[in-house]
């Protein structure tokens, strides 16, 4: 078998902020109502913390994001996704839920640097000043869906894999040197 390749093979762009495509990351979609018995424990069993609404709970390489009242996004090393999926299903068996491996359906970007916010402010109708620490915001970047959260000295952005090149184009255009907002 070949190595899994990310959508853009780790393309990057250096503008007034740095743009990197990273990944592939392991990602699971978990659909389950908040009152499902054992949900917190099931998530804990695969090494992630159940997030508060609208939060991304990060723990090292792993994370769990609140996507909607009955949807979570689990992030973990790519190679562990299938096992974790099986484990979750196992833990939640008997409860109405759905787990799907979506690691390959996504592209992931890092936008880094002191002015990273400005790159995103050109594309997303999001009030970054009110974005709480650890907040996961699902919205739109120009004409495509994107989810972001602040992490390290920048942001992590997740979008669909098929639009990775478009996203890279958007981010590079927005980070063009000389086009700082302030």
């Amino acid at each position: 078998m070949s190595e899994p390749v990310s959508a853009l093979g780790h393309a990057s762009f250096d503008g007034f902020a740095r743009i990197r495509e990273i990944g592939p990351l392991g990602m699971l979609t978990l659909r389950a109502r908040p009152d499902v018995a054992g949900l917190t424990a099931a998530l804990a069993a695969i090494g992630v913390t159940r997030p508060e609404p609208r939060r991304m709970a990060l723990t090292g390489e792993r994370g769990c994001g609140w996507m909607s009242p009955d949807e979570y996004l689990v992030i973990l090393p790519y190679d562990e996704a299938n096992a974790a999926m099986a484990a979750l299903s196992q833990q939640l068996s008997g409860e109405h839920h759905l787990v799907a491996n979506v690691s390959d359906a996504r592209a992931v970007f890092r936008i880094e640097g002191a002015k990273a916010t400005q790159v995103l402010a050109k594309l997303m109708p999001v009030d970054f000043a009110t974005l709480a620490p650890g907040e996961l915001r699902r919205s739109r970047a120009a004409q495509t869906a994107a989810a972001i959260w602040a992490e390290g000295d920048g942001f992590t952005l997740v979008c669909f894999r098929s639009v990775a090149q478009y996203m890279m184009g958007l981010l590079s255009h927005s980070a063009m040197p000389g086009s700082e907002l302030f």
Partner: protein
Amino acid sequence: MLTLECPYCGVMAEETELAPGGEAHLKRVGPGSTPEEFEAYMFARKNPKGVHFERWRHAYGCGKWFLAARCTATLEVFGTYPAQCSAPPQALQDKIRARRPDWKGF
């Protein structure tokens, strides 16, 4: 360019993050309904100039459908609430009546 608060995730979302879905609280009729009932369900619309209840989906956000009470003449939004109900919450109806005393009611 409307902004509506998604009742599920609490985000004040702008219109471009949402997808509109037409009149709310339509009662589905299926096989067995009369032609008039089916026509009324499928096509006849209140289309009021004033207080209106309508469906929206937080399409670029949590993906959930919710309902909004909005004035189609001023675009004032009286409130939003989850889609899983067959009538607007009483508190919301009271609020609307306070703002629009001549409202004929839901």
